[in-house]
């Protein structure tokens, strides 16, 4: 049942993604609007898929890397929809929807695989750690995407030529607002996620800080985001500089992910 729902969600995500891409060419707001509704529908079905999995296995659905990817896709879509409603910038969906589809496709590789969770990865703190960190990272991923769009739009406006791309991209101030909101939500959530992880590490290994490359990289990204938020709130950094900072920070965060997944074996390598 949960596999069926997952596949349905993936199809809906795909449809919504195609809708967003089509809206680039169709010159109509309506297409992007439908794509947004498609994304919402996909999100609901995806939620049901998680629920069905919970009912079937009687445990938290976040057991392996595939589930985590699927969860990340879910959070990204949800956070984006909230942002879309609050800032009315539908064009960001052109980047977000494909990212969600890619995550879901990667997640579908491990569909239905029943994994016996090692005892040290069970418990409420682990769930809290994963949920908080993933939601925080999704917010920050959006901040990164908005930053990329900001820099592009800034460049086009400075070139002073009327192009279709200028009209397509959202207004600068809306993108800057995504930066503001994303940092404001993403940073505290990431912080709480890291703290939950540290407490859990203490109960398992007796130390808050296990020797592991992922927390090291994440901490670097976390510090960068902290710095950015500080500059924004205290010094009034806005616009271009924040966009550049957001791109640099998301780079470090992606490096943290890559480091865990590809280069090192660590407690964060699943399965």
């Amino acid at each position, binding site marked *: 049942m949960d596999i069926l729902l997952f596949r349905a969600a993936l199809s809906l995500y795909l449809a919504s993604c195609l809708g967003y891409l089509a809206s680039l060419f169709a*010159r*109509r707001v309506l297409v992007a609007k439908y794509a947004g509704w498609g994304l919402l529908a996909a999100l609901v079905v995806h939620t049901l898929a998680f629920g069905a999995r919970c009912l079937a296995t009687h445990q938290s659905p976040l057991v392996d890397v595939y589930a985590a990817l699927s969860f990340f896709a879910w959070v990204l879509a949800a956070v984006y929809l909230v942002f879309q409603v609050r800032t*009315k910038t539908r064009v960001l969906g052109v980047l977000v929807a494909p990212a969600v589809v890619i995550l879901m496709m990667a997640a579908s590789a491990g569909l239905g695989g029943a994994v016996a969770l090692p005892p040290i990865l069970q418990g409420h703190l682990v769930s809290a750690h994963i949920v908080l960190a993933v939601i925080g990272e999704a917010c920050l991923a959006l901040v990164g995407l908005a930053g990329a769009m900001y820099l592009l*739009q800034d460049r086009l*406006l*400075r070139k*002073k*030529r*009327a192009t279709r791309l*200028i*009209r397509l*991209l*959202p*207004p*600068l*101030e*809306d993108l*800057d607002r995504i930066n503001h909101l994303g940092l404001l939500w993403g940073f505290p959530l990431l912080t709480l996620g890291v703290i939950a992880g540290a407490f859990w590490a203490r109960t398992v290994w007796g130390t808050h800080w296990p020797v592991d490359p992922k927390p090291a990289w994440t901490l670097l990204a976390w510090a960068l985001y902290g710095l950015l938020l500080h500059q924004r709130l205290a010094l*009034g*950094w*806005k*616009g*271009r*500089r924040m966009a550049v900072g957001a791109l640099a920070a998301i780079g470090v965060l992606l490096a943290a992910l890559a480091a865990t997944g590809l280069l090192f074996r660590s407690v964060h390598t699943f399965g």
Partner: protein
Amino acid sequence: MHLVLIGMNHRTAPLDIRERLSLSCGEEGRPLAELIAIPGVDEAFYLNTCNRVEVLAGTGTPDAALAGLRDFVLRHGNLSGEMLERCLYLYRDEAAVRHLFRVTASLDSLVMGEPQILGQVKDAYRASAEANATGAILNRVIHHAFRTAKRVRTETAIAANAVSVSFAAVELAKKIFGDLSGKTCLLVGAGEMSELAARHLLGQGVGRIVIANRTLVRAQELAAALDGQAVGFERLPECLEAADIVIASTGSPGYVVTAEMVGRALHRRRNRLLFLVDIAVPRDVEPAAARIDNVYLYNIDDLQGIVDANLAQRREEARKAEGIIDAEVANYLEWFNTLEVVPTIVSLKEKVDAILAGELERSHAWMQHLQEADRENITILVHAVVNKILHDPITGLKEESQDHAARPYVAALRRLFHLEN
């Protein structure tokens, strides 16, 4: 039934003649009673905008109607016959339909793609309908014109982008700030151009207008007109701090807004985005200000460049729009052309139906011994045979009507079947 159109527009007639004609005709709706009274004119539609005065009429006798309409224009425009020839255009049937579609879709406008004309045509149509001047023919063609205009608007980008400097500035402001409500606009210099741009910005919901001028009196005058606030030049630095959009248009020979001023203001406004529009020649804003982060500076040439590009794009889109017009005119004519054969088809069917009804009535007696179901079957059979026989001539007639070749067939049919005229 025919359509005729008579009128003058900004290309064919100078303003004073258009003015005289439109004034003499009077308010929307008033000339309609007079138009409908012209011999030959069965239905009338009167359109009067600042760029055109036009009458579209449905008529059974196009020559008489056109002559009457010419007299109407001659009388109201107080024109000589020679002037009339120069200023006036006359269209019939297909050409009239095409002209109406092009006007409504804003392809015939002074600024191609401008959005007002559709509303003006709609108002004029309402006036005609209220005066009971329109009927089946005009209702159909005008609604088709609305549909065509809508298609042109949605399927081409003809009305997409700004084609005036002040609108281009407003569009850029929207690409920087998104929603303009709650933004503050500062006018440096109280010239005509900046007033125009400020009015556009107000129309887009800009929250506050501040006017800084060297002579305070002029600033106060403009402030009163725009419901804004007037300040002297000495307060420019603090105004820059509060403003989001600055439009500079003074006659000053040197820079009024220096890069250093902008830099300091930006610091104090905590780096909020600032959009500087410099439409003055010589320039008012030091070009180096454009290098500051979060500051976007456009001068008159930048804006003109955008306008030129947009105009070129509109011409490109107009070509697409003409294709749509062609298709819709053909679509309309398909219906319009069958009009001349419709009365004949109707009377043919009526005659045949009458014959059928009569014969069935007469057969009633000998059909008594049959079952109810059998009687019904016989009725159905007879109807089916008659319809099959009529099918080919009727479709043939409609097909001929598309090439305007139906007239001899109509005559023959009427004679052979003894159809009343």
